[in-house]
């Protein structure tokens, strides 16, 4: 298992393996350091950052649904400055790529975030156009191709690091959004963020979540996510980071075959803190058992006979 080629390149950034922690599910990484060796990860996309500290949504913020979870955290975070001053130095002690997931309520805020991070030692920016939780935020940007184009373009002008555009799946045609992100200058695309959903407690006749609606993630969304990754991979040239319900090494293989260059793991981190190490191990076992010596053989390797 030692000679496997696992490293991938995304927009000029080299990842030692394709496993990246998904934003919002892995804190700032350091919370997990007693459970998992952060040096083993390809990268960490940190909790969604905003310009100012943000309290987030009222509890309860999580509901369990069959094979999935709904969350309505609402981007609780200590703000980008606190991240830079107090958290990043701790995270830099580890040998893994750091991705800053940036969020804003206005185009200006997104640009401000990118500017603030220009001189900071992080590997990539991830533009979250998709968080469905925050009232005036995310959803309006990520569902309109024009908006996606202009915001990507504007943020790209303000950023020094390669830019990943993270898409919301709550749209009719994911490919037109992906194309807009590419046209705007996005260096890579990540998808999917959570699907908007809700859960109701029939005893109390109330929504389970304090925010009424929330984002669905976990194995329940995997087929949807996989389909979208496949569609997007056929529509754009830039590399894709695929995610949505990945719990096993074989799930990783599926996303790579569908066209992703790397994957993110989200909900699995909530289930068990050392999930990513286990998933990476299983992925390597798959490669070994199937005589796949390089990850490049898997990326976009889906064998399809297109219906005529």
């Amino acid at each position, binding site marked *: 298992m030692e000679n496997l080629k696992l490293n991938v390149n995304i927009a000029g950034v080299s990842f030692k393996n394709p496993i990246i922690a998904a934003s919002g599910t892995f804190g700032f990484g350091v919370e997990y350091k007693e459970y998992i060796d952060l040096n083993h990860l390809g990268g960490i996309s940190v909790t969604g950052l905003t310009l100012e500290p943000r309290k987030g949504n009222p*509890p309860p913020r999580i509901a369990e649904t069959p094979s999935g979870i709904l969350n309505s955290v609402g981007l609780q975070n200590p703000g980008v400055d606190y991240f830079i001053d107090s958290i990043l130095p701790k995270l830099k002690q580890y040998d893994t790529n750091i991705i800053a997931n940036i969020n804003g309520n206005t185009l200006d805020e997104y640009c401000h975030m990118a500017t603030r991070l220009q001189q900071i030692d992080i590997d990539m920016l991830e533009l979250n156009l998709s968080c469905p939780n925050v009232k005036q935020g995310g959803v309006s940007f990520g569902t309109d191709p024009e908006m996606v184009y202009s915001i990507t373009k504007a943020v790209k002008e303000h950023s020094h690091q390669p830019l990943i555009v993270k898409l919301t799946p709550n749209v009719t045609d994911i490919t037109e959004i992906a194309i807009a992100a590419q046209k705007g200058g996005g260096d890579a695309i990540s998808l999917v963020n959570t699907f908007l959903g809700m859960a109701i407690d029939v005893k109390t006749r109330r929504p389970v979540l304090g925010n009424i609606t929330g984002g669905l993630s976990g194995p329940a969304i995997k087929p949807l996510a996989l389909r979208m990754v496949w569609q997007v991979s056929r529509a754009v040239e830039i590399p894709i980071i695929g995610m949505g319900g990945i719990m096993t090494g074989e799930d990783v293989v599926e996303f790579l075959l569908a066209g992703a260059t790397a994957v993110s793991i989200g909900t699995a981190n909530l289930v068990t803190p050392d999930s990513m190490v286990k998933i990476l191990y299983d992925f390597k076992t798959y490669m070994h058992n199937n005589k796949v010596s390089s990850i490049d053989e898997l990326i976009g390797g889906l064998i399809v006979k297109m219906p005529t």
Partner: protein
Amino acid sequence: MSRHIAEVVENIEIACKIYKMTIISNQVAQSAYPGQFIHISIPHDESLLLRRPISINRVNRNNNQVDIIYQVVGKGTKILSGLEKGAELDILGPLGKGFWIPKGTKKIYIVGGGCGVAPVRFIGERWDYLDITSFLGFRGKPWAYQIDEFERFSRKVFVSSDDGTIGYKGSIISLLDKHLSVENPDLVMACGPVPMIQALQKTVLKYDIPCQISLEERMGCGVGGCLVCSCAIGSKDKWDYKKVCTDGPVFWSEEVILDGESETKC
């Protein structure tokens, strides 16, 4: 603080829909202290993704046995109740910041309501050198448990029930109020359903007695990474969401802001 497999040695119904499970866990038995919890992965049903947080009721450091007490309320606890001796559980723990004894504390009151009686027992087991008086509230006799265990370390145990089938009829907090009006303990330590906690907050404020309370909130990771377990901590004008899993579950009573809409089950 680790993830490991624990073996079930006993799992019995000790009151109406309330089970006591004994597991073997060297890590939990050796390092846990009162107020901490374990985060249990539910076996047999992969569609139940999330772990269930359950407080530690008692540990035995000699044979590494750990007791937990849980009420069957939904799918996860139902599956737990069906586990037999020899079953294996994937657990994380001990987790959380539990109760603590400030310097100079001699006399404490322990208050537990419903499922909240289970975690506060560990206080009396661990800190039995203190002068302890216990106040236990139950829905009624069929739901009452472990009163005799509290009698072993308490100077006196007061019991109440909603329907009067055991102990004093009425709320355990009104009973507590009567005692606080004539005697001042150094500290009150409590766990119970939200309405009980809200009544308790008012009572301890009235008599100006320091009080630690253990909170419940729906959890994800249990280790501080996902921010889903927030509760409002601070004062009315200046508060923040803190994490019940790692900043708590135990907080000072005067800092906890409850909106009353939260889950109440026991």
